[in-house]
């Protein structure tokens, strides 16, 4: 971090950086394994070590009673995660639904390299933005198709006789 660290400045900077990282991790998690692989292989290779091997496990998904009440356990999802450390020191993590270990490794490496000031702009431009746009476009298509099925119900009022 290049910023002078005052207590306040540090925390707001950290919170902002964390929010950014949450966003890029969400974008990567939402992308298809093929799309991630293609973007990853377009990057120059970089040295890294595995901190935590790609590992598949379960997360119990919770809902809320009535939508807003006390939580309850709905059922599990498969999740694959991975942690890597670059030779330059940055640690990258990935968590996403499914069992694709290659995607988990690629995603963790992209996350790590995004944290490098030297690479961030490039990764945002080449990987994050296009993936986020594709995801948004897919969502938009669903919305538009759904909107065409919107109904207007009329209730018939019966006459007196």
């Amino acid at each position, binding site marked *: 971090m290049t910023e002078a660290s005052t207590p306040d400045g540090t925390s707001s900077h950290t919170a902002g950086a964390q929010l950014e990282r*949450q966003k890029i991790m969400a974008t990567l998690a939402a992308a298809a394994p093929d799309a991630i692989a293609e973007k990853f292989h377009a990057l120059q290779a970089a040295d890294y070590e595995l901190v935590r091997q790609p590992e598949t496990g379960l997360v119990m998904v919770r809902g809320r009673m009535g*939508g807003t009440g006390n939580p309850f356990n709905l059922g599990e999802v498969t999740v694959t995660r991975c942690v890597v450390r670059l030779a330059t020191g940055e640690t990258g993590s990935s968590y996403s639904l499914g069992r694709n270990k290659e995607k988990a490794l690629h995603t963790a490496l992209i996350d790590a390299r995004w944290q490098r000031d030297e690479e961030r702009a490039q990764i945002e431009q080449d990987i994050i933005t296009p993936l986020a746009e594709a995801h948004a476009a897919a969502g938009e298509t669903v919305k538009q198709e759904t909107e065409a099925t919107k109904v207007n119900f009329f209730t018939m009022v019966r006459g007196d006789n």
Partner: protein
Amino acid sequence: MYVAVKGGETAIRNAHKLLAKRRRGDTSVPALTLEQIAEQLSHSVARVMGEGSLYDETLAALAIKQARGDLIEAAFLMRAYRTTLPRFGYSQPVDTARMLVERRISATYKDLPGGQVLGPTFDYSYRLLDFTLAAESDGAELPVETAEMRDEAMPRVTDLLGDEGLMEPDPITDVDAPVGDLTREPLAFPADRDLRLQNLARGDEGFLLALAYSTQRGYGRTHPFAGEIRYGEVEVEFFAEELGFAVTLGTIKVTECQMVNQFKGSSKAAPTFTRGYGLVFGQVERKAMSMAMVDRSMRWQELGEEQSAPAQDIEFVLSHSDNIQATGFVEHLKLPHYVDFQAELDLVRRMRAEWFEKRDQNPDEDAAAQEAAE
């Protein structure tokens, strides 16, 4: 008497080989791919994920293929598979108000904020077989209509009623209270609503449908209205300890049903509607609705109602809703019971011997009884 059971290894091995051959069927017909099952049999996939209590479309497709389309067997395979994986933890509760909605209907309000969207539904179809699907033409891309979406919020119908004070609020108690988990602790009674909802969410669709239907026919009437049914994608967030923040894992598709039911009130509280809640993996509306109705039925005690029907009997419902347990116990009857049965045979032979002995000793008594009967 002990009767040993041994052998059968070769027969079992050969039977499983035969099963594999029959499962594949005629090899001049192309094999099903998992993508085909996941894409084109999505309701089967959803049911297997729900009752297998594990959301993974590809795994469910594999289970369906392996089980030759037997969905309970497929759910069983999912339950068995999940035991091989470590548990990373619990997600943050999903927020269905932020769903990417593909369908949202209400039978209680015709006009509601966000409107009603039918989405992909069998409702209003004529239930006539469509022979074009049997023809070669199936596979062509089918055009659909689109319309510009106004970015309008879709508040839950129950929240609208709640704003007017007409709906009982959702239960919110101690936020730090532990949440019951059937995969960690065996079911015990009395079961709180968290355990009941988890049990129903992975319960058998047919069983819940029959119970819900029974409440409509008068066995524990709850006067339900489908306040809202919505289906679509919700984000799953997980707090990663080592990162110190929540990560979005991706999205899953769920169906949510809010049943609006008749009233409760007391000298201290004005009458309000009451509610039952259904939430299931995938587009499984029949089950989400049934779940909400049975959830409401089982709340009889809390709402000061009388218990008179099977759907209200918490122990009965929760003990018999799980089709993996049910099929295990029913189907285990196929396995050798030679020892047990030998004991029964001995018993029935002894009883018969005593019966004949008694009859032969008192032939007159027998004749007298017959006369009296005549």
